[in-house]
């Protein structure tokens, strides 16, 4: 016994050193991963700070709340008097996003119900993978599709002079947003516990009755979250709307009017402005507006989805 414990003493000592070192490494790692963890917050704040910094000169100078939000005249390079009204741009974004949602909401929710509740086995797996792949198609490719395929198709089908308009961009954006909305909605439906379905089926309800009376109400918030994220997606989409809307400043009266979106305006004009000019700063101010609106939409989506988890 005595022999053993005497031998153990030096070993314990070195063990203690090792443990000590490990303890410090452990603490160091904890700090490092914490820094990684807060990076997302740092970046969100950073985005807001830097775009506000660049747009600040305009905000305290030429910015006029009424003109900015209620004038349809976006003439940042006018010789006589520059006007910075984004109403027409908001109308452009809203009309395209609105049409896109009309296309995407029914079909993506329908598809989500089909995939989650009806499809099974291989079909289900195939549909899920397809939807995921469709969601991955880059927006510039969608823009190209609008330009090269939808444009002639719309001109021919509706006999209109220009095919780059609200209809084109709306359909493109709808097809773009639908896969994302489908997979989020499908997740929400899958999150409804199976015992709800079993209970309803035990009462003699058919599949459809189970879905309509039990699953959909239970997944309501998740579905709303999916729709909100789709809206946010459409609102912020840049390349596809730049290429497919026709890019002319217009408050649309029909789906065949060309419009221009907020995002597309920045993308098209930032390269041509001198850093620090009021035009340049005004574009950053549009950026602030976009940031704030998408922030609110995402926050709402998060609150809504969180509501369902608590319930």
């Amino acid at each position, binding site marked *: 016994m005595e022999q053993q414990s005497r031998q153990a003493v030096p070993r314990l000592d070195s063990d203690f050193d090792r443990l000590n070192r*490990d*303890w410090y490494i452990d603490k160091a790692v904890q700090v490092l991963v914490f820094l*990684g963890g807060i990076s*997302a917050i740092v970046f*969100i704040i950073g*985005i807001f700070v830097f*775009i506000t910094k660049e747009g600040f000169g305009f905000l305290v100078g030429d910015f006029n709340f009424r003109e900015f939000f209620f004038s349809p005249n976006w003439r940042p390079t006018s010789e006589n008097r520059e006007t910075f009204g984004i109403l027409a741009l908001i109308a452009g974004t809203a009309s395209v996003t609105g049409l896109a949602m009309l296309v995407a909401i029914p079909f993506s929710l329908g598809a989500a119900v089909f995939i989650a509740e*009806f499809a099974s086995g291989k079909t289900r797996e195939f549909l899920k993978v397809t939807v995921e792949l469709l969601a991955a198609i*880059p927006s510039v490719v969608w823009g190209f599709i609008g330009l090269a395929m939808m444009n002639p198709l719309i001109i021919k089908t509706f006999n209109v002079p220009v095919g780059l308009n609200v209809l084109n961009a709306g359909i493109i954006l709808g097809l773009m947003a639908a896969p994302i909305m489908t997979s989020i909605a499908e997740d929400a439906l899958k999150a409804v516990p199976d015992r709800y379905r079993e209970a309803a089926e035990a009462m003699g309800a058919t599949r459809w009755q189970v879905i309509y009376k039990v699953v959909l109400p239970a997944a309501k918030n998740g579905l709303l979250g999916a729709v909100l994220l789709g809206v946010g997606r459409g609102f912020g989409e840049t390349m596809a709307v730049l290429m497919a809307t026709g890019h002319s400043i217009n408050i649309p009266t029909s789906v065949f009017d060309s419009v221009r979106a907020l995002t597309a305006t920045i993308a098209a004009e*930032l390269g041509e402005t001198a850093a620090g000019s009021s035009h340049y700063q005004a574009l950053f101010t549009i950026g602030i507006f976009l940031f704030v609106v998408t922030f609110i939409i995402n926050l709402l989506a998060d609150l809504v989805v969180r509501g369902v988890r608590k319930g």
Partner: protein
Amino acid sequence: MFEATQLNRRNETTQKLFRLALGGMTGILILPVILILGTLIWKGAPVISFEFLFTGPTKGMTAGGIFPALLGTILLVLVALLASVPLGVAAAIYLSEYAPNNWFTRAINLAIINLAGVPSIVHALFGVGAFVIFFKFGTSILAASLTLAIMTLPVVIVATRESLQAVPEAFREACWNMGATRWQTIRRVVLPNAVTGILTGVILEVSRTAGETAPIMFTGAAFFLPLLPQSVFDQTMALSLHLFVVSTQVPNMPEQLPYGVALVLISLVLLMNSLSIALRMYLRGKKKW
């Protein structure tokens, strides 16, 4: 025995009708895109050749290949990965292994959702304000890649966090009981079991990064460059921006060429995505617990 009542039959019919309608909706969602992709392949495939992939554009971009753009996209993706993967994995480790369940963690999660939800053009503005102007990187591969890295950070974080959380709690507890520290547990037990899952996220990020256009337009990608980039402080061409340029900015463009560019870009993106999905399925099939 039991006769089907009228109610039964009616329910049966409604059921079939709804199934059909929903299936139809799914089809309407997917079919046009399949058609579009088919057209893209049909019109783009004849353009693609060894020469198209490995030579530069000629005659004011109306002829020749896409090599500088292809190379530029690969460079942008690599530099973006170097920045975002370590950061994203660290963030995911924090969220999965350390973060307490409180308002602060909720704020981090909200920031991640927002980072993914902020419009790509706003990321571009941020890149211009922060990297190009403030940090004085100029319009360069570095500025563009960092912008892309921040934009796609949520992809890595979310995928990594999910694969870390999929490692059973019992594995960690067993390790702690042996006297291991938190970090030893993470390094020896949690990460090895999650590494394939993390890889799916990284590949997914490659696909996202390669396809983005708006964030690089003003931060480092150029319409046309006669020379290949020599360092990360040079500008570069990029495949996604090249598609935008050849389909909107160049007069007298032969109709086929943009289809070729689009096909290469979308093949690259979808290939990466399929790889990620395949890896995930393989992982699911292999899971021991």
